[in-house]
Structures are given as structure tokens and as C-alpha cells.
């Protein structure tokens, strides 16, 4: 297990390095940040001074070497726009995104699995058909549209929930979170639901497929024949077996929840990393874009690792071995 984890971490390091090349060059050959920054009143001398200050007059290889040197010391460069270290900015916005992604994941599990279970157990029931139809909508409707509709219905028409923003936060273990106040919870519900919609549908479909397959298996028949209660069959035997694909997919999807919260955060003016990223892209704040992508790569690699470890806990047949050797 230890060897496995170390090897995976080494692989991760390599992936991160490779991504740094792709990301850095990809971001740095597009556009020209200088004209995003300088005031229109600036004359030619001011513009040249800005180019020099940002180090954009150096050859791109130089810039990359400088970036690597900084990165080795934990400095991913200063934001062009805010003048602060990009890493600090991203970490500052991270709790908001994490709590949003976490809430969405909880919603996906809490709503998706029971609904999937129900429609898997009673596939011909009208309710099940309704659930499945709903899940198709969840898959196919674009996030930004659903987000606007949620705001229109729940904030503008009904007036039940606030339309945008993060609301009051409270400090829990030194981290500001809106999950700790009523106002914060009322603010997070709509964006979390918006972000979770796709994942809820995914959980429904995965669970349903798993349940339908498992119910026909020999071990279920045998358990029935043994006279075990239906409740125990479903919640102990069947659930255990169908959880593996669900955990895998949900785990991987947690990464994409964080990565793709961009749209939801923009619609709901949620002050997370995604909004920071979209602003950085629009204004060509290269260090922030690069730092964000680097962190995302790290995230995905780590989540994959955690999913692998969870596997071995859920299914004792899976042994974490040094498969690469």
C-alpha cells in the first residue's frame, strides 16, 4: 500500500510537470494582457514600462524557467490584476468553491441514490418513469439556463430564496463557511442544486442500473430463499455491491464539480475559484489561470488516489498493488 501510494505520488508529480508545460505555453501564447491592464490614457512609454514590469519583454523560455523556479518555492507568480500571489488568491477563494461542490455532492448522493434505488426496484411504476424522465432533463438542460430559471422561479417569482451572492458566513475551525449560518444555507441552496443537477441524474442512473442488475443475481435469490428480509437484502447485500461504481463515479465527479463550478458561480455571483478563473481568463490574468489549472491537476490526481483507496475498503477483493511493475 505504501509503495503504491508513493509510486502514485511520483506519477502525479510527473503529470503536474507535464501539465505545467502545456498550460504555461498554452496560456502565454494567446492574447496580450498589457492592453487589458493599462489605462487608455497611458502613452507609449507607460505601455512599455508595463510590459517590462510584467516580464513580457523576455523570451517565453525565460519566462517559463522563471515560473518553474518560483513554482519550486511554492510561488506560482503574482496576479497581473491584483498584484498579489496567484496561489494566495486561489486559496482565498477555495473554501467558497469547496463548500459549493461539497453541498452539490451531498445533494447528488442524498437525492440521487434513493431515487435510483426506487426506480431500480420498481422499474415499471409510474413514479419510476417520472424519475427517469426527470433525469434525462437533468442531463440535457444546460447549466446556465437551469441556473437562471432557478433564480427566476425561487428568487424573483416566489421570493423564497436569495438570488445571488454568498450570504453570511461563520468561522468553523478557522475557515469561513456559509454552511454554518441560516442566511448562508439559504444562499447556497440554489447554486448547489444547480451544480448538482447533472450529478443527481448520474447517481439515479447508476444506482438504478446497478440495482436492476443485482436483483437478478444468484446471491439475491439465495438470500431470498434463506428467508432474509427484503430490507436487509436491499440495504446490506445489494447496496454494498452497487456502491462501487457509484463511489468511483461520484468521486471522480467531485473533481469535475470543483472544476466546472465556473458556470454556476458566474450565474449566482458565488465568490469561488471558478469565478476567479473566468475573470482571470477574460482579463488574461495569466498567472492566475496557470496556477488554477495546476491546482486542478493536483486535485484530480489526488481524488483518483483517494478513490482507489476507498475501493480497497469497500471491496476486500481489490488489493492495492504496485501494478505498474
Amino acid at each position: 500500500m505504501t509503495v503504491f501510494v508513493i509510486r502514485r505520488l511520483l506519477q502525479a508529480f510527473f503529470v503536474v510537470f507535464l501539465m505545467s508545460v502545456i498550460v504555461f505555453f498554452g496560456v502565454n501564447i494567446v492574447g496580450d494582457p498589457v492592453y487589458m491592464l493599462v489605462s487608455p490614457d497611458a502613452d507609449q512609454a507607460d505601455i512599455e514600462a508595463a510590459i517590462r514590469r510584467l516580464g513580457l519583454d523576455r523570451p517565453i523560455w525565460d519566462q517559463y524557467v522563471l515560473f518553474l523556479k518560483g513554482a519550486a518555492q511554492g510561488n506560482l507568480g503574482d496576479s497581473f490584476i491584483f498584484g498579489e500571489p496567484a496561489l494566495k488568491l486561489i486559496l482565498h477563494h477555495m473554501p467558497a468553491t469547496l463548500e459549493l461542490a461539497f453541498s452539490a455532492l451531498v445533494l447528488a448522493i442524498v437525492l440521487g441514490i434513493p431515487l435510483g434505488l426506487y426506480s431500480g426496484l420498481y422499474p415499471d411504476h409510474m413514479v419510476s418513469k417520472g424519475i427517469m424522465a426527470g433525469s434525462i432533463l437533468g442531463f440535457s438542460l444546460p447549466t446556465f439556463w437551469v441556473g437562471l430559471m432557478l433564480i427566476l422561479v425561487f428568487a424573483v417569482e416566489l421570493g423564497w430564496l436569495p438570488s445571488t451572492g454568498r450570504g453570511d458566513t461563520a468561522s468553523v475551525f478557522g475557515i469561513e463557511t456559509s454552511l454554518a449560518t441560516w442566511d448562508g444555507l439559504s444562499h447556497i441552496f440554489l447554486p448547489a442544486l444547480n451544480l448538482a443537477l447533472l450529478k443527481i441524474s448520474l447517481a439515479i442512473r447508476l444506482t438504478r442500473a446497478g440495482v436492476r442488475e443485482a436483483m437478478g443475481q444468484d446471491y439475491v435469490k439465495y438470500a431470498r430463499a434463506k428467508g432474509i428480509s427484503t430490507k436487509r437484502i436491499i440495504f446490506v447485500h445489494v447496496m454494498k455491491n452497487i456502491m462501487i461504481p457509484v463511489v468511483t463515479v461520484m468521486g471522480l465527479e467531485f473533481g469535475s464539480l470543483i472544476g466546472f463550478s465556473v458556470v454556476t458561480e458566474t450565474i449566482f455571483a458565488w465568490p469561488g475559484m471558478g469565478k476567479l478563473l473566468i475573470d482571470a481568463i477574460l482579463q488574461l490574468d495569466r498567472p492566475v489561470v496557470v496556477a488554477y489549472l495546476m491546482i486542478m491537476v493536483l486535485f484530480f490526481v489526488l481524488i483518483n488516489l483517494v478513490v482507489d483507496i476507498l475501493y480497497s475498503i469497500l471491496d476486500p477483493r481489490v488489493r492495492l498493488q504496485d501494478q505498474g511493475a
Partner: protein
Amino acid sequence: MTKLTAATAAAVGALVLFTGAASAEKLTIGLASEPTSMDPHFHNLGPNNAMSVHLFDRLIAQDEKQRLSPGLAVSWKPIDDLTWEFKLREGVKFHDGSDFNADDVICTMARAPEVPNSPSGYGTYLKGKTFKKIDDFTVHAVTGSPYPLMANDISTIPIISDSAGCDAATEDFNAGTAAVGTGPFKFSSYKPGESITLVRNDDYWGDAPGWSEVEFRPIKSGPSRVAALLAGDVDMIAGVPTTDIETLKGNDGIQLSQGVSNRVIYLHMDQFRENSPFVKGNDGSEIKNPLLDRRVRLAISKAINRDAIVDRVMEGVALPAGQLLPEGFFGVSDNLQPEAYDPEAAKALLAEAGYADGFQLTIHGPNDRYINDAKIAEAIGQMLTRVGIRTAVETMPRSVYFGRASRGSPDGLPEFSFILVGWGAGSGEASSPLKSLIHTYDKDRGFGSSNRGRHSDTEIDAMIEEALRTVDDEKRQDLLAKSTEMAIENVAIIPTHFQVNTWAARKGLTYIARTDEYTLAMGVVKE
């Protein structure tokens, strides 16, 4: 400190919730673009300047039409060719209770151009000026040559406190400890991306604002901003999308405020290359650049139906433009009208210039910078095609566009042949666009920095330079107007329209629309 202010803000916020938002004098504003810092000297950018007006007075204030009025200086005048004298207001106190005097002005002028890591500083306005303290309430600004725009330049510099702000870093301003000014509001809390909260300065020297507390919330997405207003989460929003204006007009609970801005949208044409990269003959072959011919440029101007752009593309939220600033600004000409739409005359001019069958052209423009910019480029493309200039349209994000438009060609020159751009006159008078857009590109002297068409006329140059040396307001006004007339006569540039900005507020509130596009809590009035 931040924790404390956040907690205070939360407590105040909760209080407001319980007492009912309507009765409290709290104002919540949804902003389209967010300031990048609370340090007033960090970034010379519209949203930052607008925010800093709340906290930091200028020596000279700009009113809603960008006319100059006394701020922390009660009077200013040139005492000789090279020296301007500012008499400072007495008895003004900073938010921390300390007195305002000449030392604050001197240290502000030293700090403003020198903020570390600043993406774009205020050095542009302070170049070549030396400040001297004469006594506690008199300051002299000395220049190397006569400089009439002194007052305009000085009106852009927010005055900070000698004791609290001058040695402070940008982080100290963001944390609030250094954000001590003399302005109508005091700093309360700053949460980037989330909210900025200010409270009223009860000791303000001018008219105290009608709001005890103001919260600014950045809501970048247009539809979300409108929804937040409709849901009652904010009292007012800036930057109403043009597509929503009609719907909001029909809503009884909403009041719109509109005003023309200092921003002109215009076309620049390649006037410096014999072979322009995006001009081709009808068969796709290279031809001599027709845009060098004034008749062709005039034909393009006549082919553009400005009223149609205003009515159809801008849904009425714009004014047709015939010069560089709308009427009412200093230095505009009374003799200029928007070029009338006349496709027949345009065709005749093209034929006269030897392009009876037209040619091929590409118009380049940004798609996320100005109101409806991409749609305007498309409309212009169609209008030109109708008179025989087969025009392709290419739009791109501003992050890519401006770099290419300014120095995108292999030899560092403007890359495009025909572009759509906008210009906001920050100084609020006509020398700003004339100097940057019309004057011959001159890197060493800082002229024509945004002259991407590289129009060049020594006569106009001389007149602009003379205006920039003329301290007498009346004479300068004439020189600026005359330069503008000559530039339009040459078709150095084709102005299409002036942007009109729209704010929307809940019933009972109106906003005094500003030409500089700033959103100020002081401008929100209860009826």
C-alpha cells in the same frame, strides 16, 4: 482586523434583516464590474476610480457631466506660465479624525505613481509635475512647459492621509487600516468577489449622503444582475443589458436612469500601408490600399446607417456620433453633425475613386468590450457590402483583440485594416481623444498612442499641440473644436455612436446618470 470588520458587517447585516430592509437606510448596489483593490492608487481603472470617490476626495471633483468643481481645493489658477496654485479647503478631517492639510497632498502626489505591483498607475497624470508646499493650505504644481490640463489631471488623483496611508501597502488598504480618506463614506469591509461595505461619514465637509450604509455586490452576469434587482436582493444595478431594457420599462416596480457616456464608438482605417493585409481586390488579389483615399473613407462613413445601428442594434440606447465627444463636453464642435446615411453618394464616391466594383475588406472588432460590439461590427459589415465593399466580419475576445489591433503584425505595427473600437475621455474634454486617436503616432513624445489607423496630418498635429499649450480656456476650446472639425473633414476616423448607459433601481430611487460610467452611492436619490 478583517475578522472583526466581517463580524461587524454580519451583525449589521443581520440587524438590517430583522428590522426590515425597506425601513433602514441601507443601500445595496449590484455592480457589473468589480474594483480590483481598495488602494486608490493601485489600478487606474473605471471601477476602482468609482469606488475610491466614495472614500477619497480629489482636490478637484468631477460632477456627473465631468465638469470640474472644488473638492479639497477651494480654488486653483495658474500664477505664471509654469506654476499652478491650489488653495486647500480648511477644517476638513480625515475618517480617523486627523486634519487635512498640504502635507497630505504632497505625500499623495509622491505615492500615486509609485505603488508596487500596480498594473496601471497614475504616473500618466503626474508626469512632469513637481509639487511644493507653500504653507499648510497652499500647494504649487510646477511644470516644465505651460500645461493647461493641470486641473483635469489633478481631478483624477485621490487624496490619501499622510499619517495613515502614504507609507501603507496595498494590502493595508484592502484590510481597511489605511483606507482613510476625507470622502463621504468610510470603509467598513472588503471581501473580494463578494461585497464591499461602506458607512456614512457623518463629519463630511460637503453634503452628507442620504444613506447610512452602502453595500456593493459584484454580479458579473447581466441576467443574474437583473434577477437580483427583481428579487429585491439589491436596490440598484449598473450595466443593464440592452435586451432587458424594454422588459424593465414595463415593470412598475422598477425605475430606469439613462445617460449618454463619454465613450464614442468609432472605426479606424489603415492609412499607413500601401498594401493593407485585410484589403483585397474582388478576385482576392492584392491591391493598393483604397483606405488611403479620403473619398473611399468618406464613402464608408456615408454607407453606415447610424440611426439603424442605434435603433436596431442598440435598441435605442445610444446616440449617433459625428465627432469624438457628445455635445456639452469641453472642446466639442457645434458645427459637426453625424454623417447622413447616403448609400448612393457612397457608391458615387467609390466610383470616383476608381472602385466602382468595390473591393474586399475585413472589419475586426472585440466581442466582449463594448455594449453589443460584435453585433455592431456585423451590421457595419452588411452596410458596407450593400454599397459594394464586400466586408467580412471577424470578432474576438478583447484579451486577444487589443494586442493584435495595437501591435499584432510581425513588425509590431497594428495588424488589422479596418477596426471597431471605443474611446472614453477620462479627462472629460476633447484633448484626450484628439491626442491619442488623431495626432500622428509619436512614440517619443507620447502622442497618438491609440492611433491604430496611423492617420497623420501635420496641420492637425500642430493645432492639437497648440491647444495643449494654451492655458486660456476659450482659445483652447476653439482650437480643440477646430482640430476635431479638420479630423472629421479628413475622415481620419469614423465615429458611429456614443454609448448610453443604463442603471435600474427599485421604485422610489433614481440615479443621476454619469458620463464617466461611474456608479456612485452619492448619486442615488430617494424621491
